[in-house]
């Protein structure tokens, strides 16, 4: 059983056919990068896995999205539970206007956990996992906005980790950050791979190369090529993929 699998996924926004029959498999504890030009459907595809597309009107989805072998669009599935299992980190750092501590504790609190000790332990461990603990341990009660952009993004990662998901979705997590912060996030992704299955959307092909084990190239709503990142980057089978990663696109 694969950690994540999609079978013949089709997605329409009204009349717009955004995803066309996507089949893809992501193994446990790997990083899968989704690359492709803007509007190719990679973000839309990413948002399938925690059903964030549900928030948009006029979306129709057919096909199956399996997480741990379970169809997450099935009737019995509770979106809240799914989203606990499948964490998400967004393009821009978007900490809540709360303290650093409360940001990380948020996911636990909204899921009905009130045990202070438990929350505290989880906050600390999440911050440690996100490689942020050393930098913030003395100012947990300060506003999250006082952190730098890169720190904020790691805080957002810690926030996502706090509810102990097994899958982490990242939508261009470093595109709003400076190079130093970017490399920190990339390193973090590399270390998190041990415990999580990560899917990352990125515009930056070098980033895909650096962090991912598998790469999927999307173009106009179709999955053009999916393979090991090494192969995609050294010897892609598809000419479109080659043109894209070599920058000769269009």
């Amino acid at each position, binding site marked *: 059983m694969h950690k994540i699998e999609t079978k013949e996924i089709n997605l329409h926004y009204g009349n717009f056919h955004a995803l066309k029959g996507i089949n893809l498999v992501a193994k446990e504890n790997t990083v899968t990068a989704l690359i492709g030009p803007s509007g190719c459907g990679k973000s839309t595809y990413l948002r399938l896995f925690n059903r964030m597309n549900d928030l948009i009107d006029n979306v129709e989805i057919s096909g199956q999205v399996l997480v741990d072998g379970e169809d997450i669009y099935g009737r019995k599935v509770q979106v809240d539970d799914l989203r606990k299992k499948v964490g*998400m980190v967004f393009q821009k750092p978007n900490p809540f*206007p709360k303290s650093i501590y409360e940001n990380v504790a948020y996911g636990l609190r909204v899921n009905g956990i009130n045990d202070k000790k438990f929350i505290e332990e989880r906050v600390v461990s999440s911050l440690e996992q996100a490689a942020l603990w050393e930098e913030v341990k003395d100012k947990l009660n300060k506003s999250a906005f006082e952190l730098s952009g890169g720190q904020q993004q790691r805080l957002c990662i810690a926030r996502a980790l706090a509810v102990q998901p097994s899958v982490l979705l990242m939508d261009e997590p470093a595109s709003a950050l400076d190079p130093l912060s970017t490399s920190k996030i990339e390193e973090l992704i590399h270390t998190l791979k041990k415990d999580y299955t990560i899917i990352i959307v990125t515009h930056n092909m070098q980033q895909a190369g650096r962090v991912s084990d598998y790469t999927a190239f999307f173009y106009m709503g179709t999955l053009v090529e999916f393979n090991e990142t090494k192969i995609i980057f050294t010897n892609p089978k598809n000419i479109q993929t080659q043109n894209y990663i070599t920058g000769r696109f269009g």
Partner: protein
Amino acid sequence: MRISALVTSITIIMIVFFLFREGVGIFKSPSVEKGYVIAVNKSNAVETLNSTQLKNIYDQEITNWKTLGGKSQEITVFRVEDITNYYSEEELGANMEYLPAKISEVLAKTPGMIAFFPSTYLVKNFKGKVLPLKNISVANFLGGTEWFPTAQPSAQFGAWPLILGTLYVSLIAILLALPLGLATAVYLAEIADKRTRNFLKPVIELLAGIPSVVYGFFGLVVIVPILKNTFHLDSGQSGLAGGILLAIMALPTIITVSEDALHNTPNAMREASLAMGASKWQTICRIVVPYSSSGITAAAILGIGRAMGETMAVLMVTGNAAVVPHSIFEPLRTIPATIAAELGEAPQGGLHYQALFTLGCILFIMTVSANLMAGYISKKKRLA
């Protein structure tokens, strides 16, 4: 073009100038209408009086000069028309031509007498003592609890009940309107689908467009009787009626401003919260509303500001009793209603006229500071 741009500024400056020029005048004038004097017997030790004392004397609440620092002596109150109690019509002459002299005489005769009469009746060798009167003080004006602008001899300008009434009604209004307005704003911004939104928004704008006099009319013929019957009041005209009406009128402001504030919450926040497994409701409560709290506060303050300045509707339903209100079921009176009701009757340039302008100044200060505060609060958050 530059000039026209400056019109707003000029207008404000002129408003301030004229309002305050007329309004400050009251603090420079004695508490007795111009053209009248207060006089006592020469032997009287009391040197001066203020308007409250004067009023109490004439209301017979102070009956002995001792209370005012004089000798222990009964006070005899004298008004011009009382002259007939002392002298026959013949003595006063056919055309009352001896009246001034007789006033002087009676005053000299009666040690405990205090007289109020037009200054034209002041004879050259006046045998009484004209009392210099204290000017109306700012503290008296703001803190005075009695508003009898037409009282004789000394009009009472205690704005306290009016200020209190204004705040009272505004407070009731905001207490009623804020939950309702906030709920509607949240519903519009976060919950409702597009169609409901497109239907509700114009409706709320219409609510804002209805003239206040129409609201007042509606309040008078519908709300007031309902209140009267429900709570078995003597009259439904009360602070509550005004509050309800103002709440309805403040709703559009509160809804629009707080909806804007809610919209300012970045979508990323909402998505982040939802992506953590929070429900929509939790997201609204824990993220969206706290994030826009300053905007909502600004909305509430703006709403209060609007409510304070509202005139016609309040004038029509609050019963206009210028007393310090003790319960929401009692009639009360607000500053704008007072101005609207009394300015027509106040002679231009007179004490009453000036007093109303002073009220205008107070109202102006109250609303402008509410506006500035709302602006400051919403701006402060935006920088953070």
